[in-house]
């Protein structure tokens, strides 16, 4: 009796939570096929029966009347987020491994201080960084360019990668490295052949964080670009006008979130494989 009741309770809670998560998506989905009349006429859900579906919202994203062309900013976003995340992940993983395994001294600063220096980059509010970044990119002639954005995003994403990865490496016992070296690896071999394959879940988590932060950033994309290197979040804002085009915004929200959902589905099975780090005992 008890297990049955427990199961019922468990699934009720899960169902309720799922409804909370999924409802906004369904809402956005129906709204994206509505027009002004459909939106203002009270809550309706079933196309053709309750409202007349229309492609106005979707058309406005691809050069339709009063809309934008989303394709170029979309590709820009993929390039910038993808490259910045990949570079941050590589640099961050190497830095984190170094900080986790070797002792550094920079003047009076030791490993913990170096780590804090990395992470402190994310402590200050972004607005503080806007003007320095602007001036630096201006000096380099990289304002409104994808390369400039990639550099800025690396600066923003690297601390996240280091932070996630150092925690992961600290949880992998040093004996694994020592064992690999006893088995005949060089220190670099131990990292690449043993530690790195063991760290896949951590790398995936760090990668996810990087991609999510990079993809969703509006502030720096807005302050450091004008027209050429426009990114998706900035382009979407251009949809707004005196009468809020809910249908266009809904369509753009769906198309913006699509890559993240796709990635989440792809990596989910790696994440649920459990913590591989506990290699001892």
């Amino acid at each position, binding site marked *: 009796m008890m297990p049955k009741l427990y199961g019922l309770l468990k699934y009720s809670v899960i169902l309720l939570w799922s409804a909370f998560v999924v409802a906004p998506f369904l809402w956005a989905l129906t709204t994206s096929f509505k027009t002004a009349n459909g939106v203002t006429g009270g809550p309706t859900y079933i196309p053709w029966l309750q409202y007349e579906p229309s492609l106005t919202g979707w058309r406005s994203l691809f050069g339709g009347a009063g809309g934008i062309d989303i394709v170029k900013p979309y590709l820009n976003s993929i390039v910038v987020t993808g490259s910045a995340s990949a570079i941050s992940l590589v640099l961050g993983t190497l830095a984190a491994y170094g900080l986790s395994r070797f002792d550094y001294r920079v003047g009076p600063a030791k490993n913990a201080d170096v780590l804090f220096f990395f992470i402190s980059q994310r402590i200050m509010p972004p607005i503080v960084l806007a003007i320095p970044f602007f001036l630096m990119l201006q000096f380099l002639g990289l304002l409104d360019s994808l390369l400039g954005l990639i550099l800025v995003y690396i600066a923003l994403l690297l601390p996240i990668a280091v932070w996630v990865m150092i925690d992961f490496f600290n949880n992998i016992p040093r004996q*694994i490295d020592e064992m690999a070296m*006893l088995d*005949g690896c060089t*220190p670099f071999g131990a990292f690449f052949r043993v530690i790195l*394959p063991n760290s896949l879940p951590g790398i995936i988590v760090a990668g996810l964080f990087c991609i999510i932060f990079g993809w969703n950033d509006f502030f720096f994309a807005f302050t450091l670009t004008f027209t050429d290197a426009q990114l998706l979040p900035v382009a979407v804002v251009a949809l707004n006008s005196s009468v809020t085009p809910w249908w266009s915004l809904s369509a753009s929200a769906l198309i913006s979130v699509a890559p993240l959902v796709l990635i989440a589905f792809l990596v989910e099975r790696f994440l649920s494989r459990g913590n*591989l780090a506990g*290699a*001892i*005992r």
Partner: protein
Amino acid sequence: MARITLERVGHRYGHAPYALEPFDMVLEDGRSYALLGPSGCGKTTMLNIISGVVRPSEGRILLDDRDVTVVPISGRNVAQVFQFPVIYQSKSVYENLAFPLRCRRWPIARIKARVAEIADLLDLSGRLGKPAWQLTVDEKQLISLGRGLVRDDVAALLMDEPLTVIDPQMKFQLRRKLKAVSQKARHTVIYVTHDQNEAMTFADEILVMSAGKVVQRGTPQELFERPRTTYVGYFIGSPSMNVFDAEIGAGGVMIGGTPIAPGGALPSGLPTSGLRVGIRPEYASLAQPEDSDTLAATVVGVQDHGSVRIVEVAIGTARARLKLGRDIAPPSAQARIRLRRDKLCLFVDDHLIAAGI
């Protein structure tokens, strides 16, 4: 496959006192050694110094005639098995065992054959394809052992209490296999343990350690018959050696006023204080009526160990234990005890000065 020489090697972690006091030692090629001692006596530190995991704060290490003091771990060709399983989680059992060979760039066919051989020895053949992280703890430790044994050309095989996590029945079997494999490969083996039985059965020679020092080095029999200090007497043997305060009197060596070795050939110049007499429980027995020089004892307790009985007695204020065969009826309350004179160990300030009086 190599002689290991340690020259004035000592180590301290930071500014702490010596974890290992500077000492000289030569471990001969192809022999097996056990490092025996309580936790924290420096056994593991010594092992890690030989393998290169720890760089000693002073001294030199030589493998054969090659100075490897500053050679990194990977350049020493030493295999080490840790106390707890260290496995590569992301690899299969096969890949775990093959890894040391891959690092040496063995041809694939040769790797295959060797891994199969080791897997067979450790009963892992059925699990070669499994991901290593799915195995139980003792299976994982078998992998660790296997990785230590798989290379047949190592300079030395170091094992740090490798059987801790293995269950007792398997332990015995595994110890025999380990011994057989290492003898066949003529490895120089160093085996760290705090279990004297393990040390005695496994090693040609035992190094007893205490507080960062090697106290005595010898064959199991030497350690048993002639412990250099009372500490070794306590540490080796089960139950440990009985040690009594003794004095020299008119009747020779006396315990609590009773002579136990009258007129014996005592070393000259014995000090008058700090004298102690040690006797193994195996060499103390119930006295026969015709025996002389016996000690009066009160029986405190009897433990039945199956094949033998351990009888605990009080002799004056001292306690002692006797190991008696099952065919001897344990005494009830009062007894007289005889100590074999040729097995008595005489200690001054806890250091052996004579065995057999």
